[in-house]
Each structure stands twice: as structure tokens, then as C-alpha cells.
């Protein structure tokens, strides 16, 4: 009950400005101009395009569906539409009644004579309330040097300040000291549980099908929730609604092909994009006969279609299917993948009330099997499935207020492991029971311009989680801090019976104060709550790690973050700079006892520890946006620590993803119309690891031993790497549809063996009786040489 008082209080606070807005709307007569901002070439809607009313010195931006709405007093206005990389367009409009105005912007490359240089969009980083947010244009991502020439969304964001990885091949990414499961990766609003192919080498997003990528590290709007550290919002293209285009690429790992075009001209369009790796096909002639059955491939398929039902309604259907397959002869196989389906309906209740309804399904599963005879085999699979219904409304009150509200319900089904072993024809099934949970949330937020200097964005999210039966609720007793808890009892619950529930309020707020047109100061606070947890205590998360809901023993993770920043643009927005400081406190993080057994363990919860975390840092970024030479430099000075009862005497110690210094530089250089070059350089402090101090001899074996028992007592050496790439664009000829480009890239140019980890072992020679056993430290480098590659991309 104690929750409800603050809820009322906060709702009242939120509602007050809304009432004043409503009054304001009534006292002054207003008309609305609304519509969509689109790419003139493909008809693709543009997200975050600026719409600026010159006479009022005020404006708005298009939302995730390209929709904008402005309610202003009647009059004659010049509306300026701008979007990065596109020519700014000015439209004069006489407004005395509600009007529809859909604008198609032309790409800058096709610039004509009458160019307007001033562009509202270019200084968005200074003028809007958003902070701790990075938006990467796909064009930028495509220009970066990529491992084996494969354009990669996840690897690109690792070059941004505050984003790190534990190493090459490690899945996912870490944001401001958070673990990989604390990032909500959304593909057209459906969560993707494993964002990687081939462990962490390639991400699951096909660059040909992605329109827009946005990463929220802090100042997270109330409409997003469910994860602690970040939101990676990936939006798929809708498909060209004017003409059919084909694009694709032939690379060293994948081949890609995508088709997009109108289904019904200007009403409906689609895109289908597919990729498949062909290491297995290429490797086949070189494999021994007994390895001929080796299966090694990964593929993904992205499909999206939309249909406009009229002026007010539009339907989108998108789907993703990706799979990694590995097999070793007939004897062993392993595969995993994600599948998502999203159905969305945009409806305009009025020119000022935009709504979206989403239903999605998302699934991540893996399967292991071995044994090629029916009477000696082992089969194993696990999955996490979720179904969700979601709605959000955008109410464009006036140019100074944009109210967004909505809600979501998610039903989770966790299958932690279905396993059947057959030994000499006798079967034994040791599957773990299914777990179910419901997550529901409501949110309300307002983006408000108080005056020309001050803007605020505030909101509240109410989240609720219910761990449901059928299942057993275990009770444990702590015997000693940091040790396995003792089993006390188990209570059986029936189907859909509530086992445990949690309710949380998540306030979010950001403030912007503008000193002058090119300088602003921002402040944000957010609380985020996470109800599902990835159980993993290895250096890099594995594809077989299991997700688990919050239960009576596992509490929801909670994080509070404060960030302040200064944003300054120089030389007419040629240089975009930012400096941010953040401080984050986290509670109920999942940690593990020393000998945790996380695999097929019904009593898993006895091996988990409830940890506190904190992270703080300084992030600096300078970006050059114009000219032949563009790019950015980012530097992060950070610390992320954990405090776990019974571990390291209960003191704070650096977490596995702590990197004191993290520096990266990315540069793009356009030599001429055909040649362009790019380079990346990264340098960061090695991550902490636990190294032994002593050896124990038992029955002739040598065991590592840490005399102090401390975790993360040392660090692996620093990581640095340089990548280069050159692109040769085909000649553009009038009337020629075929466009091709060659991309040459070198990853790890100066051939450094960056350590992923250091491990300790007995020497590789069989110990002989009586003589002492040699031990050694071994550096494991995932990529131990430079990797060149050539890719050919085409479009027609």
C-alpha cells in the first residue's frame, strides 16, 4: 500500500501542467498542421526530422513513424523541414484551418541551386532535452571499418563514449558499467534476447534493412523500461514505396540480398532482406572426410511490409528470424537463434493525437544434442518466449508540449531446460519446469518548452511484475555469507497462481538550459527496474546462458542514475562537442557464489548472491560533422564496482567490465567522388580478472589458489587496435541503375595480439610421476593477426 501515496502525488504533479496546457488550448484559438516527413527518393519516413516555424521561432520533430503535428494560432507561416543529410525545405503555408502537409526531402547529394544552409536539425544535440543518447546514422555505420567487412550495428556503438565490451567475440555490449543483459535491444519494438551471430563476432541486424539506430544510456524516457542500463532502439526500413530496388553484397563471411518496393504504389511497400554465411561451403573442400558433416552456418531473414488504410491508419508487419547452426558429424549439434514478429497499427485519432498499437512475439531458443545412436544420446533445449501488447499515444498539445502516454503488458515463458538423456536404451528426462511471469507497465511523459532557454522532459513509469505458477517457490536459509544457501522448503503453486509480485515507480526527468544558441547545460535523472535476469558468470556470456524471472528469492534489479552534461557546438555546427558526468547506483544485481552451478540446477537460486553496484564516469566527445574529413573522438574515464556480501570482505571491488580509460577515434575522409577512407582506433584499460597467487597439490594435480580469496585482484593488459578501410564507389551515370562499390578493409592493422583473457594451467606436457608439475600463464587472443577483407556491395 505504501506505493500508492507517492503514485498519487506524482500523478498530480504530472497532471498539473497538463491541466494548464488544456486551459491554454481552450483560451487561444489554434489550428493544426500535421503530416509526415519522408525521404523523397524512397518514400521512407524520417525519424526525428525537425519542423521549424520561422515566425514563431519554435517547432517540433517527427516521431518514430515520421509523423509531426503543430498546433499554432492561425496565420501565414514559413515551415522549415530539415533532416541530417537531406536538403532543408521551406514551405509557406496559410493556416486558417487544420491542414495536412506531408513533405518529401531530397538527399543532399542531389542538391540543386537553391540551398538553404541553416538547419535546425544540426544543433539538436544542444537544443533538445535529450542527453546520454547517441543516434547513429546507418550511412555512418556503413562507412566504418568493419571486421571482415561486415557492417555491424553493435560493434559500431562500441565506439561511442560509455559503451564497452569485455573483448572480441563477446556477445553484446556494456553500457556505463552495466552487464550485457541490462540492455534492451529492440527491433521494431520487439526485444531481441541475443544480438549476436557466431557468439559476439557479428550482430544479428542486417544493415540493408535497418533505418535508424538510437542508444539511450541515460535520461531514458518513461516510455522505455524493463532493462537497467540502456535501450538500443533499432528501427527497420519500411521499403521503398516508389520503385523496386535490389541491393546486396558479397563479403568474406556473409552474402546479403534485399529487395524492397511498392506493393500498391504510395500506399504499401515491403522489404525482404536475407543474409547467409558461407564459411561451411568455402571450407568444405578443405575438410577431412570425417569432418565433411561439419555444419557451420548462420543466417537471418528480415521482412517488413506496411499498408496505408487511408489518411488515418497505417499497418506494419515486421518479422525477424535468425539462426546459428553448428554440427560436428552426425554425433553432435548445436544451434540457437531469435525470432520476432511485430504487428503495429498507427491511428490518428485527430490531427493532434497520434497513436500506435503494437502486438509482438519474441523468442530466443537454443538446442544441443549429441550421440548419433538412438540408444545413447543427449538432447537439450531451452527458450524464452514472450508475447506483448503495447500502446502509446502522442498528444501534440502545442509546439511547447508533447505528451506521450501508454502502457504495455508482457507475458513471459521461460523454459530453462528440457533435457533427455538416453543411456544404453534407457531414457531419463531431467527437464526443469517452465516458469511464467507477467510484466505490465503504464507511463506518462511530457516534453515541455518553458521558454526559449529552458526545456524539461519528465515522466513517470509504473511497472508491475508477477511471477506465476505452475511452479515451486523455494525457501533457502543463508548459512554463511557468500556461500551456497541451504534448502529449507519448497511450496507448490498451481497454474497461473501468483507466487510473488513486485511493483515499482520509475520517475524520469531531464532538464535543458540553453546559455546561447550553441551552448546548453543538461541534467537528467532516471530510475530503471529490471525484472528478468540473464544467469551467466563466464567472462563472455554464452548462447546457452539462461534467462530467469524475478522470483521470491531473486529481487528486481533497480538503478538510479544522475547525469549532467555540457553541450557545445562550434563553427556553425561543424564541431559538436559534449562532456557528461554520470553517477549510477544499482541494487539487487545478480552475482554468484564461487562454485555456482548454473547449468540444469533446479536449486539455482541458492547459488545466487544479491549484490549492489555503482558506476561513475566522465564522457567526452568531439565530433566533426562537415567537410571532407569527418569523425569523432571519444574518451571515457570510468569506474564500475560491485559490493557482494561474503565476497572480498564485503568491500567494493571493480566489476568484470570496469575500464578506467576508454579512448576511441573514428575518422572518415572523402578523397573524391569515388574514393573514401575510414579508420578506427581504440585503446582501453584491461578488464579486471582473478589471478591465482599460489598452487595447491592434490593427488598429483596442481590447483590454482588465491591466498586472500579476493575476486578481480588484477587486470589483463591494455587493449588497442587500429582498423582501416577504403571504399571505391562505382561511377554514377545518368540513366544507369546499377551502382556498385568495393570495400577493402583491414582489421587489427598492426597485428596486435590483444588479450581476451589470461588463464592458468599445468604445462601442456603429461606430468611424470614424482617430478614437480610446471604451471604457466597463457594469454588468449581471440584475434591474433591482422584480418584483411574485400566486400562488393551493389544496388539497382
Amino acid at each position, binding site marked *: 500500500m505504501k506505493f500508492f501515496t507517492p503514485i498519487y502525488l506524482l500523478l498530480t504533479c504530472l497532471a498539473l501542467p497538463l491541466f494548464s496546457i488544456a486551459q491554454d488550448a481552450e483560451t487561444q484559438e489554434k489550428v493544426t498542421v500535421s503530416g509526415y516527413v519522408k525521404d523523397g527518393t524512397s518514400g521512407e519516413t524520417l525519424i526525428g526530422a525537425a519542423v521549424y516555424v520561422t515566425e514563431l521561432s519554435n517547432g517540433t520533430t517527427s516521431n518514430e513513424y515520421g509523423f509531426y503535428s503543430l498546433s499554432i494560432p492561425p496565420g501565414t507561416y514559413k515551415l522549415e523541414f530539415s533532416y541530417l543529410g537531406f536538403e532543408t525545405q521551406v514551405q509557406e503555408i496559410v493556416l486558417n484551418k487544420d491542414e495536412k502537409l506531408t513533405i518529401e526531402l531530397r538527399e543532399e547529394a542531389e542538391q540543386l541551386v537553391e540551398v538553404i544552409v541553416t538547419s535546425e536539425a544540426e544543433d539538436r544535440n544542444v537544443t533538445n532535452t535529450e542527453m546520454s543518447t547517441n543516434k547513429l546514422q546507418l550511412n555512418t555505420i556503413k562507412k566504418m571499418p568493419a571486421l571482415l567487412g561486415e557492417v555491424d550495428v553493435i560493434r559500431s556503438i562500441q565506439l561511442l563514449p560509455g559503451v564497452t565490451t569485455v573483448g572480441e567475440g563477446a556477445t553484446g555490449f556494456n553500457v556505463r558499467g552495466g552487464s550485457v543483459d541490462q540492455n534492451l535491444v529492440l527491433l521494431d519494438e520487439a526485444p531481441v534476447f541475443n544480438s549476436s551471430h557466431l*557468439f559476439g563476432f557479428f550482430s544479428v541486424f542486417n544493415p540493408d534493412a535497418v533505418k535508424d539506430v538510437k542508444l539511450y544510456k541515460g535520461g531514458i524516457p518513461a516510455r522505455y523500461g524493463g532493462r537497467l542500463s540502456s535501450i538500443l532502439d533499432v528501427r527497420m526500413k519500411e521499403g521503398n514505396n516508389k520503385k523496386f530496388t535490389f541491393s546486396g553484397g558479397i563479403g568474406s*563471411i556473409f552474402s546479403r540480398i534485399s529487395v524492397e518496393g511498392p506493393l500498391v504504389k504510395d500506399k504499401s511497400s515491403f522489404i525482404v532482406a536475407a543474409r547467409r554465411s558461407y*564459411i561451411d561451403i568455402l571450407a568444405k573442400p578443405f575438410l577431412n572426410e*570425417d569432418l565433411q558433416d561439419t555444419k*557451420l552456418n548462420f543466417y537471418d531473414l528480415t521482412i517488413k511490409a506496411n499498408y496505408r488504410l487511408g489518411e488515418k491508419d497505417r499497418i506494419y508487419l515486421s518479422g525477424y528470424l535468425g539462426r546459428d547452426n553448428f554440427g*560436428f558429424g552426425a554425433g*553432435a549439434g*548445436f544451434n540457437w537463434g531469435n525470432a520476432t514478429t511485430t504487428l503495429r497499427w498507427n491511428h490518428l485519432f485527430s490531427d493532434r493525437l497520434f497513436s500506435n498499437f503494437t502486438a509482438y512475439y519474441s523468442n530466443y531458443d537454443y538446442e*544441443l544434442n*549429441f*550421440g548419433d545412436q538412438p540408444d545413447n544420446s543427449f538432447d537439450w533445449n531451452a527458450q524464452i518466449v514472450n508475447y506483448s501488447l503495447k500502446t502509446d499515444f502522442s498528444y501534440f498539445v502545442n509546439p511547447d508540449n508533447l505528451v506521450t502516454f501508454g502502457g504495455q503488458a508482457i507475458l513471459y515463458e521461460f523454459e530453462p531446460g528440457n533435457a533427455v*538423456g538416453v*543411456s544404453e536404451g*534407457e531414457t*531419463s528426462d*531431467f527437464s526443469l519446469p517452465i516458469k511464467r511471469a507477467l510484466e505490465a507497465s503504464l507511463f506518462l511523459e511530457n516534453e515541455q518548452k518553458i521558454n526559449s532557454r529552458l526545456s524539461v522532459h519528465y515522466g513517470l513509469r509504473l511497472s508491475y511484475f508477477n511471477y506465476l505458477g505452475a511452479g515451486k517457490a523455494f525457501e533457502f536459509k543463508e548459512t554463511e555469507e557468500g556461500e551456497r544457501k541451504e534448502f529449507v522448503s519448497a511450496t507448490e503453486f498451481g497454474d497461473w497462481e501468483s507466487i510473488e509480485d513486485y511493483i515499482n515507480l520509475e520517475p524520469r526527468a531531464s532538464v535543458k538550459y540553453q546559455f546561447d544558441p550553441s551552448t546548453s547545460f543538461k541534467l537528467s535523472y532516471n530510475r530503471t527496474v529490471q525484472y528478468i535476469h540473464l544467469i551467466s558468470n*563466464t*567472462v*563472455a556470456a*554464452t548462447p546457452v546462458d539462461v534467462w530467469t524471472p524475478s522470483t521470491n528469492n531473486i529481487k528486481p534489479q533497480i538503478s538510479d542514475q544522475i547525469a549532467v552534461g555540457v553541450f557545445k557546438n562550434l563553427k556553425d555546427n561543424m564541431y559538436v562537442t559534449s562532456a557528461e558526468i554520470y553517477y549510477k547506483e544499482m541494487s539487487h544485481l545478480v552475482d554468484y557464489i564461487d*562454485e555456482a*552451478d548454473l*547449468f*540444469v540446477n533446479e536449486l539455482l537460486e541458492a547459488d545466487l548472491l544479491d549484490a549492489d553496484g555503482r558506476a561513475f564516469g566522465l564522457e567526452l566527445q568531439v565530433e566533426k560533422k562537415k567537410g571532407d574529413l569527418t569523425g569523432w573522438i571519444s574518451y571515457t574515464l570510468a569506474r564500475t564496482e560491485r559490493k557482494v556480501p561474503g565476497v572480498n570482505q564485503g568491500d567494493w571491488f571493480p566489476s568484470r567490465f570496469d575500464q578506467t580509460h576508454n579512448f576511441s577515434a573514428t575518422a572518415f575522409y572523402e578523397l573524391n567522388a569515388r574514393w573514401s577512407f575510414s579508420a578506427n582506433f581504440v585503446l582501453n584499460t584491461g578488464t579486471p*580478472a582473478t589471478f*591465482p*597467487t*599460489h*598452487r*595447491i*597439490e*592434490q*593427488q*598429483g*594435480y596442481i*590447483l*590454482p589458489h*588465491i*591466498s*586472500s580469496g579476493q*575476486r578481480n*585482484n*588484477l587486470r589483463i593488459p591494455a587493449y588497442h587496435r587500429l582498423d582501416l578501410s577504403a571504399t571505391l564507389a562505382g561511377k554514377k551515370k545518368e540513366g544507369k541503375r546499377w551502382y556498385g562499390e568495393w570495400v577493402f578493409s583491414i582489421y587489427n592493422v598492426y597485428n596486435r*595480439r590483444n588479450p*581476451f583473457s589470461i*588463464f*592458468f594451467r*599445468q604445462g*601442456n606436457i*603429461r*606430468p611424470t610421476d614424482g617430478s*614437480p*608439475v610446471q604451471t604457466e600463464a*597463457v*594469454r*588468449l*587472443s*581471440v584475434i*591474433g*593477426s591482422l584480418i584483411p577483407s574485400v566486400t562488393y556491395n551493389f544496388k539497382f
Partner: protein
Amino acid sequence: MKFQNIFFVLLFVSVLFPACQDVIDLDLEEGKSQFVIDAWINNKPEAQVIKLRYTSTYFNSTPSPKATGAEVVVTSSTGETYTFTDENNDGDYTWTPATGESFGGIGEDYLLSVVLEGKEYTAVSTMNRVMPIDTITYEDREEEQGDPAGIYAEFFATDFVGTGDSYWIKAFKNDQYLNKPSELNTAYDAGFTPGGNIDGLVFITPIRTGINRVPDSGDDAVDDSDQPPYKVGDKITVEIHSLTDEAFFFLEQALIQMTLGDQTIFASPVVNVPTNIISPSGEDNEAVGFFCVSAVSRKERMVE
């Protein structure tokens, strides 16, 4: 854990990125040396040895410092006492059964007492039941998936009905124990782990075939030429040592800790293996090591 190991090793070795490994020099943290008890005794009719040592720094490959001058006594729940003595003053404390006799009895509990420099360290264990080995078979195999051609063996034994039995399967080739960490073979009931609930069956295949020598893996592998696969004329010996739950868990953890490198980027962190030695001061890490009493079944077969 073992399933994961097998898969990821296979995967990583075969995947396009052959992870490279280099032996490097490293300075480790300093720390205090601790007392180590290495007490794994059994009912084989032979001398039983309890080794008392100290930990040495991790890279120190000289023999571990010996703890001499201790009093070592094992007492059974039936009141029998066994005194282990260090005749050679080398830290190896020995008790030798009379001809035709052996240590202890199945189902009995044992208390180990070690008095060193006036402090008493204790530990308890139980000699659990062990089943006989039914057969050892072998077959001639072609080269397959990295294993060279040769003779490969398999043994058959059936787990007792009722969960909670655990075993250490030791294989000897021509009386030489296959002692590489990757060859360490343990079973819980008929499967790998307690969670598996594979009870009362014949051991599952990977355990049955876990009596063959394991070749080195990794890109710096040297062919393990001193121990090729079995060949005609070799003697295969298999022993099953019964374990307590704690001892099984100890070996499981020891195996993980010794083979972390095989798990490439998915390695678990380095942690201390558990101990069942109770130190007098009550401090956890005063003494480390393990005490376990096993019953042993044994079978031999010549390759013909």
C-alpha cells in the same frame, strides 16, 4: 559444465577464428603460504599415504614445501584407529595394512586428525559403496575428428539404484595413471552431475569412454606421443573410487579450475576449490586440501 566444455572447445577450434594462445610471463600478487592436506585414502590392499605440504607460489615448479613432525590419525566410527607415520621425514605419512587386509569398511565414517605445531586440523569422510565393473571392451578405430587411429576402450558398470552415489573413475595404461587434468573422469549416479537425475543406469557414454587418453588441444598442442591410443599388448586398468558428495564437488571444481583455458572466452572465473579441512582457529583458509575415504572396484584387460 562438461557439456558446455565439449561444445565450445569443438566450436572454437573449428571456427574461422583460431584463437591464439601464447605463454606469457606474469607477475602475480604476493600472498601467504598455507598448510595443505592431501588425504585421499582407500580400501585397496596397499600402503595408504596422506601428504602434508604447504602451498607454494603459483609458478614455483619446485616440489611443494613439506610439513613434517605432524601426528596423523584416522579414527573410524567403529572405534578403530589408524596411525599414519612419516618414516622418511618427507611429509608423506603412511599406514600399511597387514597382508591380506585393507583399510576400513563400506558405510563407515572416518575422522582425520592432524596435529601440526600444536594445532589440530580435522576432517570427516565416509566410505561409500562402489559397484563392480562388468566389462571393459575395446575397438579398432580409424582416425576421427582429431583422434588418431588406434584402439579405443569403453567400460561398463551400472550405478546403484537410489540417487546420491558418486564416483571417480581412474584409468591406467600399462599401470600408468592417465593423469592429465582433461582425463579426470567423475560421475554422479550414472551421469555427470547431481542435477541430471540419471540414476540406476549404466554410466552414460562419455563416462564409459572416458578411460582413453585425451590428446592435447589448442594450436600449440604437442602430440602426446608418450601416450598414444591403446595398442595390442597394452594393459587397460579401470578403477572406480566411491566418493562423498563433498569430494565429488571438490573434483568437479578442481577440473573446472584446471581446464579453464579450454573454455576459451567462456571461461568461468578463477576461484578457490573448496576444502573440508576444519582449522582450529575457525578461519576458513587456514588449511586447505581434502580428506576422502573411498571404496575401490577394479578390472584389468589386456588388448589382444
